[in-house]
């Protein structure tokens, strides 16, 4: 009996990739059968998912556009650094270049500034009172302040200035957009998980007897669970597929806004939104199913 049992155990372990392939095929069939069994409810779930995902996609896509707008405005912002009269401009330039977030430094010699001023205004013939100036650009408007503080500590700096209010407003818009996107993701996740959870619970109820038999006959736990997880992921995938249609309209609308303001639309945005939407919906769908299984499927 001992040997028989061990032989039997070995006999049940799939031996080759063909076995694994057959198991995957059976799981696929089972998933399709579960989806069919859910009937018209599938349509309700998929359209609800699509509606949620459209809202998410539209928010995310708009956030990317607003972000590109604020970046574009932000890149126009720069810190003006006025150096002390005895300072070596190149030395100060290389010192500032070492700071994090600094992307570009343009040196304006005092002679250039003076000549420019003289051209614009009628000035008496006096010595040049202007300092050498450096225009410092940073990678992101929100980093302006920290770079400003770093430069301030340099001894050769006489005075500095930047459009603090404008930078603060741009930063606020960025912050609000990011927060809204995060909240939408959170709501989307919660709704998706709840919808999938309820649906899978219904499917589990309808297959209760079959699951009980499978369990008693020694069908692997993961084999019982996997079709439910696949079903959740399927709803996520189908919801995303349907949401792509309205999102194209959102994309076109935003492109027109970009054209109007003559700010280039981020090329990657639509692909990124679709990729994130598919990944998250499939993931949330599968996770929703998994939680439901954990709660309601005692195998």
């Amino acid at each position, binding site marked *: *009996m*001992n040997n*028989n*049992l*061990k032989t*039997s*155990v070995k*006999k*049940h372990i*799939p031996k080759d990739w*063909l*076995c*694994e*392939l*057959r*198991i995957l095929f*059976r799981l696929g069939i089972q998933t399709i059968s579960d989806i069919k069994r859910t009937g018209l409810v599938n349509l309700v779930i998929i359209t609800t998912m699509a509606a949620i995902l459209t809202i998410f996609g539209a928010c995310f896509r708009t956030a990317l556009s607003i972000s590109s707008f604020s970046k574009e405005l932000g890149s126009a912002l720069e810190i003006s650094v006025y150096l002390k009269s005895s300072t070596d401009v190149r030395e100060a330039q290389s010192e500032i270049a070492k700071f994090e977030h600094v992307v570009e430094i343009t040196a304006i010699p005092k002679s250039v500034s003076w000549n420019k001023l003289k051209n614009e205004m009628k000035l008496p013939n006096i010595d040049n009172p202007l300092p050498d100036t450096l225009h410092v650009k940073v990678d992101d408007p929100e980093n302006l302040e920290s770079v400003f503080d770093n430069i301030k500590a340099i001894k050769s700096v006489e005075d500095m200035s930047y459009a603090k209010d404008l930078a603060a407003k741009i930063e606020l818009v960025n912050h609000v957009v990011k927060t809204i996107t995060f909240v939408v993701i959170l709501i989307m996740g919660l709704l998706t998980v709840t919808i999938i959870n309820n649906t899978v619970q219904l499917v589990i109820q309808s297959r209760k*007897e*079959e699951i*009980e*038999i*499978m*369990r*008693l*006959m*020694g*069908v*692997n*736990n993961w*084999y019982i669970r996997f079709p439910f997880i696949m079903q959740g992921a399927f709803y996520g995938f189908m919801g995303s597929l349907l949401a792509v249609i309205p999102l194209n309209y959102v994309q076109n609308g935003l492109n027109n806004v970009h054209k109007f303001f003559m700010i280039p639309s981020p090329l990657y945005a639509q692909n990124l939104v679709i990729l994130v939407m598919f990944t998250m919906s499939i993931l949330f769908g599968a996770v929703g199913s998994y939680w439901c299984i954990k709660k309601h499927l005692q195998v």
Partner: protein
Amino acid sequence: MIRLKNVTKKYKNDHYALRNIDLEINSGEFVFVVGSSGAGKSTLMKLLYSEEKPSSGIVSIGGINIANIKNSKIPNLRRCMGIVFQDYKLLQNQTVFDNVAYVIRTLGISSKEINARVQGALKIVGLYEKMNATPAELSGGEQQRVGIARAIVNGPPLLIADEPTGNLDPQNSMEIMQILDQINQRGITVIVSTHDNNMVDYFRKRVIKLDHGEIVKDMQAGTYE
């Protein structure tokens, strides 16, 4: 070999289903577990296929102690045995063939082998001709035969039947017992729980009698009383 050593099963309401059970069943044996309702027969059966876990003691099957077996290992254990239930537990919306093939399909076995195994099992229980019928089209006895075919399709060394004739008339009960006897003659260990005294007396196999969770009789070629 199956071995139970000092096995006690106590439920949460302090009810003892089994008390200090010591039992050995050898390979190839046919054993009747008898007793009145509530004697502990079903609990004993459930311990053997790990549907219940003992409160204390050792339950060993094939040298493996399954008393505290991990939940993830239970399917492996159950696939090494066939289980037959009083209420048949068949999928009503599937054919006889599909019911029998259901579990082995999940193992990644080829269709050719599945056909051969299922047809073989159905021939043993005499339902080869009805493989395309649904359970609703079969009598109670025939449904139980499907249950037996499903239990033996995987070639297990052990068959556990929990009240297999509980829902059947005497004639069908006799047929089911004869099939189980034939299966035993193929070398498979068969353990049957029943309270059908006529069957037990007719077949004259080893009889283990339970009363209030204790073994009160263990007799080779025994009778019910």
